[in-house]
């Protein structure tokens, strides 16, 4: 459904953030993208919806090469790609409802959006999504009144109301506590399963990634160095991705009972 073909990004400074990344994501597959800071995870997902312009290569979403599109066609294709951000990226002075409905901006005209008169079907869908993530009662609160976990739930609603085929998720749990992180990851994965969405999730918490996804891609210095199921991430593999470190604790954290046994 999504295919990256020799996708390369070289920044003006000369830094090569992505080196000919080739990758295929079938529909409905949720994959985690791991790798150290600066490996190009963020650049990779931003090159897909062209918030960052790729330097060369192709991004095929279905039959469309996104890298070849003009401004108007790109906007229409962006509607099919929902994005969830690190630090939520909600517009803080807008209400929860406005933030969710901003996911429909690609579908409604300027005057309708300016006067906040969205079609009833959009409003109903926003209510349904907010109810699904347990925030219906917060609809008219301002986004900056919410806690971190609540904000990320609103961010999820904003991405889903686009009715996307693909979710691009950039460090969804970076500023959340461990429990909320799990809840958010579980919610994203459940919603993807419910709606048959494919997702690429950038995440630096390896244990959390292993817990929820079926496929892990390891990125190092802009190159794919691992592509496989989460249990294929052995200490050797992690060393290859991140560099030398003692990985036993990270892998053990997968199953807390194992950890207790090991301690005994």
């Amino acid at each position: 459904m999504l295919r990256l073909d020799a996708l390369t990004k070289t920044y003006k400074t000369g830094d090569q953030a992505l080196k000919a990344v080739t990758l295929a994501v079938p529909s409905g597959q949720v994959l985690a993208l791991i790798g150290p800071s600066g490996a190009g995870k963020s650049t990779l997902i931003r090159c897909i919806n062209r918030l960052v312009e790729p330097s060369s290569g192709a991004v095929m979403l279905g039959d469309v090469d996104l890298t070849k599109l003009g401004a108007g066609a790109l906007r229409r294709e962006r509607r099919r790609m929902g994005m969830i951000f690190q630090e939520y990226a909600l517009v803080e002075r807008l209400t929860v409802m406005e933030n969710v409905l901003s996911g429909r901006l690609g579908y409604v005209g300027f005057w309708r959006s300016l006067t906040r008169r969205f079609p009833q079907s959009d409003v109903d869908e926003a209510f349904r999504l907010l109810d699904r993530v347990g925030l219906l009662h917060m609809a008219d609160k301002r986004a900056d009144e919410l806690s971190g976990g609540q904000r990320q739930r609103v961010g999820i609603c904003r991405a889903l109301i686009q009715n996307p085929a693909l979710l691009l998720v950039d460090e969804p749990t970076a500023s959340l506590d461990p429990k909320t992180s799990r809840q958010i990851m579980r919610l994203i994965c459940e919603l993807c399963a419910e709606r048959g969405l494919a997702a690429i999730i950038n995440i630096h918490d390896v244990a959390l990634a292993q817990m929820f996804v079926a496929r892990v891609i390891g990125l190092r210095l802009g190159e794919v160095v691992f592509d496989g199921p989460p249990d294929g991430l052995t200490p050797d593999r992690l060393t290859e991705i991140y560099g030398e470190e003692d990985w036993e604790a990270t892998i053990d954290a997968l199953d807390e009972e194992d950890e207790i046994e090991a301690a005994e």
Partner: protein
Amino acid sequence: MSVATHRELDDMLGTKWRKPAMVKRTWLRWALVIGFVAYLIAAVLSVEVNWLRVWEGLDRGAAFVAAFASPDFVSRGSDIWAGMLESIVMTVASSVVGILISIPIALGAARNIAPLPVYMVCRGIIAVSRALQEIIVAILLVAIFGFGPLAGFLTLSFATIGFLSKLLAEDIESMDRSQAEAVRATGSKWAQWIDYGVTPQVLPRLVGLSIYRVDINFRESAILGLVGAGGIGATLNTAFDRYEYDTAAAILLIIIAIVMALEYISGVVRARVQ
């Protein structure tokens, strides 16, 4: 390696620590300080004061200050009223027009939103508006349009553009990128992106600056009358020319009262819009 580090540490223990100086070279640092003090002394000595003239002038100054104890609102009441009304009309009209023109220019002058050619043009407009002082613009416009509030209105609108566009553009440039990026990622059009991603971030600043500019425009309107551009300044100028210090005092008191009222209102509004 750790042994070497410890030896380094042993050398440093017991030595004094000071914040590194801003100018590292000692001779240059002292040269700058001495040069500045010498210039200051020379500058003060170069001011010539005619103390005899000051002594004579003190009486006139005292008469002016004393007039504030007995301001005369009545004998030129109708002139004051007409001038004040003209000033208020000039202030409101020029603020509204100036702000409406400023907003698109501010968008164009924000480097993170506008492409380079648009940016250069808008920054150019701002630079011209800021380079020309109000009085100079007013003298020019009075020459073109003749005496009266039209010249004052145009002057203040022009000055508002330079002020508001520059400060608003700077606020747009320092906005949170990720909020705007998130709106763009939904597939929004440019105008929708501005409406949802940018405006909410800069609106409080826009409101605050606008009220502040209304305040400035009112004060400026009192000055512009001195060069014939209408408003309460013309009445004030006439009062000075006739040595009617009590009328002048009345006008100044009214200006002070209105500026203070605007100051209070702007405080209340800015606290509400957060």
